[in-house]
C-alpha cells in the first residue's frame, strides 16, 4: 500500500510535459517499448510522443493498429518479404504490398516525414499518393523494393518540396524515362542524399548536374552504372562537399584530360569519406581517387573487377578504412596487406567473382580471413565467400576476435568439409559461438552435423539471426537451436533434414521470434496444420507451387514454410501458391 502511494506520488509530481521531454531523448524502439511497459500513464504519454515506428514484418500488425496506438508518427520503417527472397527462394507475387499502409497513413499521418521500406512492393500510384499526401515529406528509402517505375519517381520529384533523401538501393525500377529527374523544380534545393545506383538507364545528366549544384547540403550521391566517367569531374566540382560518392562505370577511353580533370575534382573533395560504384573499372583511372584515400572510412569495390595488385595499391592508401566491400580478386595477399594497413577496420565483405565456376579462379582462401582477424582488432562484422575452410582457421578467428558480432561465412560448395582433416566444420563454428559471446548474426556453411547446432544452442545466447543451409542430420539439430538460443528472432533454413518433431516440440518458441523460414526441409503438411491450429498468434504459411497441399497426404513435406508471429490474423493478399494454416477448418474444404 505504501509502495503504491509512493509511485502515485511520483507520477503526480512529474507533469506529462516533463516526461515527454525526457522521452524525446530516447529513440531506440526497444527502449521506447520498455518505457511503455512501466505503467499505464507512461504507456499513454509514450504512445502520444512516439515519432518513429519500426515494423519488422509488415504482416505482424495492421496499419490501423499502428495508427491507433501511435497517432503522431513521423517516421515509419516496414519490412516485407522474407530475407531469402533476396536469393530468389520466394516466388513472385508473394506479397509485401505497402499500398494499404500508405493509404491508411495518408489519412492518419499528414505530418509523416519518412518512409523506409525493405523488400516491399510499391506501385507508382502509391508513390503518387505519398507525393501528394505528406506536405512535409523528407525521406524515402526503398531497399530491395519493386513494383514501380520512373514515373512514380517523377511524381515524388515534382511534389515533395522538402525532400531530403531519396534512396533506391538495389530496388527493381522499371526505367521508362531518364527525365524523371527534371521534375525537381528549379526552386528545389533541399536534397541531401540521392541513391539511384539501381537504375538501368542513363538519367538526364544535365538535369542531374543542375540538381546537384543547386543543393548545397548534398552529402551522399550514388550514381548508376550508366553515368559516364568523363562527366563525373564536373559533377564533383558542383558538389565538393560530398561525403559519400558512388561512381558510375569507372571506365572511359583513356584520355589524359579526363584523368587530370577527375583527379583535380577529387582533390577538391575534402569531406569525402565513402566511395562506391566502380563498375567496369579501368585500372589506369584508379589513381584519380588517391587524393581522397587517406580519409576514406568506407570503400565499396564489390563491383570492381580489378586484380589483386591494383586492389592492393588502392586499399593500401586507405589507412582510415572502417568498412571494405570487395571481390575475392583481392586474394590472400591483398587481405594480408589490409590487415597490415587498415587497423581501424570494422567490417569486411568479400564477394565471389565467379560463384558458379567449378574451381577457384583466385588465390583466396581461409588464410586471408585469418590474417584480417589477426591484424584488425576492431573487426566485428564479416561476410566472406570462399571455397575452402578449416576448423583450425575458424578457431583462430574466434580466438582473435571475440568481439565479433556478425559472422557470415559462405563456402561456395555446399557441405564442404575441413579440407585438411576432411571432417565437419562443427568444431570451428563451435569455437566461433563459444568465444564470440556477443554474436548477433551467424550464417553457416560447409559440412555440418547436428553437433554444430548443439554448440550454437549452448553458447550463442545473444544470437538474433541464424541462417542455415545444407546442414545437420536430424531434428535434434533444429531442436538445439530452438531450445537454446534465447534471443533468436529470425531463423532461416534451407535444404536441411529437419522435420516435424523439433518444430512441434518447440512450438511456443516460435511466438517469441519474428519469423521462421524453412524450405526444402522435411516438415509435413500435417505438422503445419497442427501448428496453425494450436498457435493462433502465428501465421503458418505454406508455399507450395505443386498445388494445394490438402490434395496430398498430410505426411507429405511442404516445399516451403514461413511462420511468423502476428496480431493481425492471417493475411488476405496471398497468391495462389500460399496457404495459411488456420485454426478453423477452412482448409479442409
Amino acid at each position: 500500500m505504501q509502495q503504491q502511494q509512493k509511485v502515485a506520488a511520483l507520477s503526480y509530481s512529474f507533469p506529462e510535459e516533463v516526461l515527454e521531454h525526457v522521452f524525446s531523448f530516447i529513440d531506440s524502439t526497444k527502449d521506447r517499448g520498455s518505457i511503455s511497459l512501466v505503467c499505464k500513464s507512461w504507456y499513454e504519454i509514450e504512445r502520444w510522443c512516439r515519432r518513429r515506428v519500426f515494423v519488422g514484418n509488415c504482416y505482424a500488425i495492421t496499419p490501423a493498429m499502428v495508427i491507433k496506438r501511435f497517432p503522431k508518427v513521423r517516421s515509419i520503417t516496414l519490412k516485407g518479404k522474407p530475407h531469402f527472397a533476396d536469393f530468389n527462394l520466394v516466388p513472385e507475387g508473394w506479397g509485401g504490398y505497402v499500398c494499404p499502409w500508405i493509404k491508411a497513413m495518408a489519412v492518419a499521418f499528414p505530418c509523416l516525414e519518412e518512409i523506409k521500406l525493405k523488400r516491399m512492393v510499391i506501385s507508382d500510384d502509391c508513390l503518387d499518393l505519398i507525393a501528394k499526401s505528406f506536405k512535409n515529406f523528407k525521406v524515402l528509402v526503398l531497399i530491395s523494393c519493386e513494383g514501380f517505375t520512373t514515373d512514380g519517381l517523377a511524381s515524388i520529384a515534382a511534389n515533395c518540396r522538402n525532400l531530403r533523401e531519396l534512396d533506391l538501393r538495389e530496388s527493381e525500377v522499371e526505367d521508362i524515362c531518364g527525365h524523371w529527374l527534371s521534375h525537381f523544380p528549379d526552386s528545389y534545393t533541399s536534397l541531401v542524399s540521392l541513391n539511384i545506383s539501381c537504375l538501368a538507364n542513363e538519367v538526364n545528366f544535365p538535369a542531374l548536374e543542375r540538381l546537384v549544384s543547386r543543393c548545397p547540403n548534398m552529402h551522399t550521391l550514388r550514381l548508376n552504372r550508366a553515368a559516364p566517367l568523363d562527366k563525373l569531374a564536373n559533377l564533383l566540382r558542383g558538389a565538393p562537399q560530398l561525403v559519400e560518392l558512388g561512381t558510375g562505370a569507372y571506365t572511359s577511353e583513356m584520355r589524359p584530360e579526363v584523368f587530370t580533370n577527375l583527379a583535380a575534382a577529387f582533390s577538391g573533395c575534402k569531406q569525402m569519406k565513402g566511395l562506391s560504384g566502380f563498375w567496369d573499372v579501368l585500372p589506369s583511372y584508379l589513381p584519380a581517387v588517391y587524393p581522397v584515400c587517406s580519409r576514406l572510412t568506407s570503400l565499396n569495390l564489390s563491383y570492381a573487377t580489378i586484380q589483386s595488385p591494383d586492389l592492393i595499391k588502392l586499399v593500401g592508401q586507405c589507412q582510415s578504412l572502417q568498412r571494405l566491400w570487395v571481390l575475392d580478386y583481392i586474394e590472400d595477399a591483398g587481405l594480408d596487406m589490409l590487415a597490415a594497413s587498415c587497423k581501424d577496420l570494422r567490417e569486411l565483405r568479400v564477394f565471389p567473382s565467379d560463384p558458379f565456376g567449378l574451381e577457384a579462379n583466385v588465390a583466396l582462401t581461409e588464410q586471408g580471413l585469418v590474417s584480417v582477424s589477426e591484424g584488425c582488432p576492431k573487426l566485428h562484422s564479416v561476410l566472406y565467400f570462399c571455397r575452402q575452410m578449416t576448423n583450425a582457421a575458424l578457431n583462430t578467428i574466434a580466438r582473435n576476435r571475440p568481439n565479433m558480432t556478425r559472422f557470415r561465412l559462405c563456402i561456395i560448395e555446399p557441405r564442404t568439409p575441413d579440407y585438411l582433416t576432411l571432417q565437419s566444420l562443427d568444431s570451428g563454428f563451435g569455437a566461433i559461438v563459444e568465444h564470440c559471446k556477443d554474436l548477433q548474426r551467424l550464417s553457416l556453411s560447409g559440412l555440418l552435423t547436428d553437433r554444430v547446432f548443439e554448440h550454437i544452442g549452448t553458447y550463442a545466447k545473444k544470437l538474433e539471426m541464424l541462417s542455415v543451409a545444407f546442414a545437420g542430420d536430424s531434428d535434434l539439430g533444429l531442436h538445439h537451436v530452438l531450445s537454446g538460443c534465447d534471443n533468436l528472432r529470425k531463423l532461416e533454413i534451407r535444404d536441411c533434414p529437419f522435420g516435424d518433431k523439433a518444430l512441434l516440440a518447440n512450438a511456443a518458441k516460435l511466438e517469441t521470434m519474428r519469423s521462421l523460414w524453412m524450405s526444402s526441409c522435411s516438415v509435413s503438411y500435417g505438422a503445419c496444420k497442427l501448428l496453425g491450429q494450436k498457435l493462433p498468434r502465428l501465421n503458418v504459411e505454406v508455399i507450395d507451387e505443386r498445388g494445394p497441399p490438402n490434395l496430398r497426404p498430410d505426411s507429405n513435406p511442404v516445399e516451403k514454410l514461413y511462420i511468423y508471429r502476428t496480431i493481425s490474423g492471417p493475411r488476405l493478399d496471398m497468391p495462389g501458391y500460399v496457404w495459411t494454416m488456420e485454426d478453423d477448418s477452412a482448409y479442409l474444404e
Partner: protein
Amino acid sequence: MSPTAVVTEDEGRRKLSSTMERNYLGLSDCSSVDSCDSTLPSLCDEKKVNLNLKATELRLGLPGSQSPEREMDSDFYLTKLDEKPLFPLLPAKDGLQKNVVSGNKRGFADTVDGFSQGKFNGNTGINVMLSPRPAGAQASTVKEMPSKVLQERPCAARGTAGHNHAGAASVAGCAPASKAQVVGWPPIRSFRKNSMATASKNNNDEVDGKPGPAALFVKVSMDGAPYLRKVDLRTYATYQQLSSALEKMFSCFTLGQCGSHGAPGKEMMSESKLRDLLHGSEYVLTYEDKDGDWMLVGDVPWEMFIDTCRRLKIMKGSDAIGLAPRAMEKSKSRS
C-alpha cells in the same frame, strides 16, 4: 503436333537465319508431356494418408527414438511418383519451382558415399542438383557448366521417374560430370548477379578469361495470370527447355488451379486435355528485346536471344499476330 507456347515448327524454320539448321523446338527430344508417360495422371488416384499422429504429437520426444520420418519419406516418394502431368517431370532447372522437399536426412549420408562413387543419389532432387564436385577427373572434364548439365537432364528425366520432385529411383547411368545451379545458392542477390553478368561480358578479355555463367533473371508475365514469375535464362540451353519450364510454371494458371486463393483445386484436367490446351497455339511466347520491341521467341539463335531478351510474355496467339512480320524483318537486318 504444334509446340507449346512457342512458335510452331514451320514458322520457326522460316524465321531461322540460314546459318542455323537446328530445330530449337525439337519436341521429339524430350517433350514435357511425353517424358512422363511413366507417371499417372490425376491426383484423385492418391489415397489420402491418415495424419501420422505420432509424428505430429506435441511433445518433447526424444529425437531419433522413433522415426516416423522414414514412413513419411516412403509415402512421400510414392506420392511423387504419382505426380500429375500438370507438373510434368522436366529436366528444366527453371529456378522457381520446387526446391525439393526431400528426405535429406537420408540423402546426406547417401551423398557422402555418392561423392566418392561419383554417382547421383536420386533420393533428393537438391542433392542431385548439387552433386558437389566429385574428386579429380570428373570435375575437370566439365568446363561448359550450364549447357553440359542441361544436356544431361533429358537423360536423367528419362531414366528415372522422379527428378525435381525427387523420386526414389536414383539417376542411374548419368554421371554427375558437372555442377548444377542450385536455386539461391550461393546466396548472392539478383542485383549483384546481374551486374556481374554484364561485367564478365565486358571484361572477360582482361580479367577472367572465361565468361562466368552468372544468372540472368528476366520477368515472365502471362496474359490473365495474377502475378509474374522470374526465370534465369542461363539455366537453359535451348528454346525447348525454356518453353517446357514456362509451360510447367504457368500450367497452373492455364488450368485455373492456382489462379486465386480459394479457387477450386479439385477440378482435374485429363492429361489429353492439358496437352491440347498447351500445344494448341492458344498461347504464344514473346519477348521484349533491348530496343524495346516485342518479338516472337524462337527467331534468333539462342545465344543471341539471351543476350537481347529483357523480359518475356506469354500472350494469347491472337494478340501476337502482328509480331511475325516485324520479327522477320529484324532477323533479316541482323543476319
